[in-house]
């Protein structure tokens, strides 16, 4: 196995390469699941529970079935519904409007059950039970510790204690979940907006109790998932069943409300934290009691103590169930929650100690990469201009903040790819990964072309189909470190085969042939071009299937981000002015899309820290802001200047970049706000109402 070439020897990897599917996307030629049209296709809709908790006594679909244009109805999908938006029944009809109208004609009798939608109430004695047999609605309970926390606090000169609270955030992909199902004989073809064509194939086959080789999942282009689309959901199964029943293809795309209720969210988090340090800034102890809700799902834990060195620590956590849709992994599960609380607490402690927050971090962060990143970032950002918290005057005050993150992001050793070289010189690679919007099409093509010393237009990447060799679902920042080594190795193997064939054809040894830039130099016989060489294949293509191997990728990233905010003291509005990110991810495969990835992470952090908040009405369990008017994600005018620096560790090979940039800025922004207004807001998002009340409180002292 050859290592990656030296940086200055590469022409497509570690360069700024524009997306090969860019033109398709901007012209509308790229087919997203929403764009798939099949002959005779019907439209599916799901009837969703109006109650947060109820037993389904009966579902009468007769009126819906009688409606003209309705082709299939599924009644009574579940016996018990556990949140507003849970599946009750489904319809396929010749138009979406008729399907929607048919849902209104389905008569459901419910036995309404007690419910709870506030995690702080749900964990109390006597609260309504989301699942029977789980008193206080406690799901997973977790306790961890190291050292002796009491001893640590006894050694501390300064201690702070606060509760930090993050509300539920939603993934909000621009393309909602949805699929088109078409049965061809016994085989099911499913165009799905998924982050995993293979995980979806397996999950669908299991749910429908059919052989996996009869399920074919296709995702050529998709509009984001952020972790919510890693595995099939009930809509996939419902759509497949509707299509079977109707004997026609069915398209079932969720609308925005369904997207917000039923297919995933980032859990809330309440972290009661006690933290101590010595006068010289050495951290001594950390203690946390936390809880959070993942709705009817699990996974609200936070990886505390995050980033910094505590010789003594102790944490306990409870997942609390409420009657809300199940959480799904969302870009760095648990990490931004941990980051917000930890970075806030770090700044509070630094303030109390009278130590500069960055110095405080340098003192307590053992990671050597981050040590360098802090210095690079501080220089670029102008950290030295940071003023004492609350010292600004005037209508607008500014503040600076910093935060850090870490992640894994290694490759999956089961990944496989096939590289084909055809007798006419054509080249392709088949690999069952998928491009979830981040540029996987482009890096697959770039790595293949780089290895074969061809141009991008000479190679054809083939991805996004479950009939291609296995690759992992795009989650956990694993795609680039799984896919690029495998494609490189398969290309290397195919090239070796090609050299063998050419050598035999021209009567030389393979190692005597020199290959470079589409030219084969054959001793005593001069140069031949790529096509002439491939003609030696004599009608049979080379097809090399190769599995991922160690040595071209790594795991483990470090990063930090700096934020400058401006707070309008008359309105409470926080505007992020600048963000500086310093991030490592080993060998950066595409400098352009990697920068986009980091920018996207920071945009998500701005949304999380300043705007986004999934609400549930206390008395009805209904989400009142289940639309993009009231569930606010930032737009173009909310964007700051982004400055991205990749900390060069290319010798470590490829490391994933999906999650790392979505972590550090949450705490950085919160800290910048506190620095600007001289008061800390303990609950995200930091909205104008909270800032105005905090400012008013400060004035009153």
């Amino acid at each position, binding site marked *: 196995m050859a290592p990656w070439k030296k940086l200055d020897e590469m022409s497509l990897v570690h360069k700024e390469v524009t997306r090969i599917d860019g033109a398709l996307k901007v012209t509308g030629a790229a087919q997203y699941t929403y764009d798939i049209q099949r002959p005779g296709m019907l439209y599916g809709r799901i009837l969703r529970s109006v109650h947060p908790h109820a037993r389904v006594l009966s579902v009468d679909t007769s009126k819906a079935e009688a409606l003209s244009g309705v082709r299939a109805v599924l009644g009574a999908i579940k016996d018990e519904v556990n949140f507003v938006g849970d599946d009750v029944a489904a319809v396929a009809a010749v138009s979406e409007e008729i399907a*929607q109208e048919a849902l209104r004609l389905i008569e459901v009798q419910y036995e309404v059950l007690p419910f709870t939608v506030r995690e702080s109430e749900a964990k109390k004695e006597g609260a309504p039970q989301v699942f029977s047999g789980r008193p206080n609605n406690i799901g997973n309970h977790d306790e961890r510790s190291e050292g002796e926390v009491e001893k640590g606090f006894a050694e501390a000169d300064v201690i702070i204690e606060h509760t930090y609270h993050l509300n539920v955030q939603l993934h909000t992909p621009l393309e909602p979940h949805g699929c088109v199902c078409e049965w061809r004989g016994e085989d099911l073809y499913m165009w799905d907006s998924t982050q995993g064509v293979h995980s979806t194939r397996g999950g669908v086959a299991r749910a429908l109790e059919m052989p996996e080789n009869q399920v074919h999942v296709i995702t050529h282009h998709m509009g984001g998932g952020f972790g919510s689309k890693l595995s099939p959901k009930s809509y996939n199964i419902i759509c497949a069943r509707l299509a079977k029943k109707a004997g026609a293809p069915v398209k079932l795309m969720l609308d925005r409300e369904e997207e917000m209720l039923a297919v995933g969210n980032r859990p809330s988090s309440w972290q009661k934290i006690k933290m101590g340090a010595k006068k010289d800034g050495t951290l001594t102890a950390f203690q946390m009691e936390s809880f959070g809700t993942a709705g009817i799902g699990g996974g609200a834990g936070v990886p505390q103590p995050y980033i910094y060195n505590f010789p003594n620590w102790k944490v306990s956590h409870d997942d609390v169930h409420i009657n809300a849709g199940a959480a799904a992994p969302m870009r760095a599960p648990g990490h931004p929650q941990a980051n917000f609380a930890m970075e806030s607490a770090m700044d509070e402690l630094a303030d109390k100690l009278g130590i500069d927050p960055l110095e405080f971090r340098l003192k307590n962060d053992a990671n050597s990469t981050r040590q360098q990143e802090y210095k690079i970032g501080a220089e670029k950002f102008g950290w030295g201009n940071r003023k004492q918290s609350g010292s600004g005057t005037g209508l607008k005050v500014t503040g600076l903040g910093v935060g850090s993150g870490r992640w894994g992001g290694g490759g999956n050793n089961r990944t496989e790819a096939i590289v084909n070289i055809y007798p006419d010189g054509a080249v392709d690679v088949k690999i069952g990964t998928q491009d979830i919007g981040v540029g996987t099409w482009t890096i697959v093509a770039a790595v293949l072309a780089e290895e074969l010393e061809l141009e991008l237009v000479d190679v054809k990447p083939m991805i996004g189909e479950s009939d291609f060799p296995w690759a992992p679902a795009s989650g956990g920042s694993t795609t680039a470190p799984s896919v690029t080594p495998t494609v490189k190795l398969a290309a290397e193997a195919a090239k070796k085969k090609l050299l063998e064939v050419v050598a035999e054809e021209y009567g030389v040894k393979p190692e005597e042939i020199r290959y470079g830039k589409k030219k084969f130099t054959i001793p005593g016989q001069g140069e031949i071009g790529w096509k002439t060489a491939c003609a030696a294949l004599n009608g049979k293509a080379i097809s090399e299937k190769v599995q991922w191997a160690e040595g071209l990728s790594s795991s483990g990233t470090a990063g930090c981000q700096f934020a400058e905010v401006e707070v309008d003291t*008359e309105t409470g509005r926080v505007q992020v002015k600048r963000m500086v990110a310093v991030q490592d991810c080993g060998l950066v495969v595409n400098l352009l899309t990697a920068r986009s990835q980091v920018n996207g992470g920071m945009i998500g952090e701005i949304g999380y820290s300043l705007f986004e908040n999934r609400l549930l009405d206390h*008395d*009805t369990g209904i989400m*009142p802001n289940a639309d993009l008017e009231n569930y606010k994600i*930032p737009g173009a005018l*909310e964007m700051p200047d982004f400055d991205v620096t990749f900390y060069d560790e290319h010798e470590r090979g490829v490391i994933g970049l999906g999650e790392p940039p979505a972590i550090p800025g949450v705490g950085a922004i919160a800290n910048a706000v506190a620095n600007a207004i001289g008061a800390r807001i303990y609950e995200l998002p930091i909205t104008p*109402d909270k800032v105005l009340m905090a400012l008013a409180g400060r004035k009153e002292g």
Partner: protein
Amino acid sequence: MKPFEYVNPKDIKSVPKILAEAERALLFAGGTDALARMKEGIDRPDVVVNLKKLTDLAFIKSDRKGLRIGAGALLADIIASKDAQACPGFVEAVKSVGTIQLRNMGTLGGNLCQRPRCWYYRSARFDCLRKGGDTCFAIYGDNKYHCIIGGDPCYIVYPSDIAPMLIALRAEIEVVGLKGKRRVKADDFWVLPAQDPYKENILQNDELVTQVFIPASARALKSHYVKFRERDSFDFAMVSVAVAARLDGERLTDVRIAYGGVAPKPWRAVKAERALEGQVATEERVLAAAATEFANAEPLEQNEYKVILAKNLLKRALRELVAA
């Protein structure tokens, strides 16, 4: 969506009859609000009356009496019109509506007759008071964006940006119905829920807004609109304020102030106007005037901040008005 009849009236005069005869009619101009309500299912009309083809609703005219704008005029056209520039505060208010896309589609009449944005009203899942139910869910619910004054028994805010400015400029609104035309002061056009919890204005079932008249006297006034939104890219006002006054040296006269985002109708701040009439708008005096106005405000659990915001925005609006 329920099937409906789509009607193209031949002229304005024929509209009231269509409205009166339909069981449930819906006026359709820009469609930016109407379509959303139909899709959500909170409006299920039998008849949709298309106003887009009535070209005599879409005019912008100016003469010595003042500025007359048809209800069908597009917001983007108002912003681009030379005649409208004589009332800078009015243009500011129109510019602050929605987004470029919405202003390219939306009409003046539609903006003035839009339905509230309250999420309990907008979601078909809540059978709220305004939709004929018996509860205003905002009282004990998520009420950060709701009203702080004039609420009982329904706590919406009226979302139009243009409405407060029309009140500040002493505009009038022309209405046509079965009985013919009538002109209503903008100040009297919108109603509080105590008067009618199901409607936001005085329009009868057979009536539609046909034009808006801004008197020539408005040209002698300085006017200014300050809208505060949580998210600049696209948002309705958390609180907004329209101010109009004559500047006599440093003193304000003929002061008119109207708020958006604080009450179920555009809220004319009469007490604040009185406190500032003939005065120099010092920061202390303006804050005191606003405090008087909102002394009786009854914020809900999550919107006490709106009282602070309303005071600060008046301060900002008058500071900028005087400086302009």
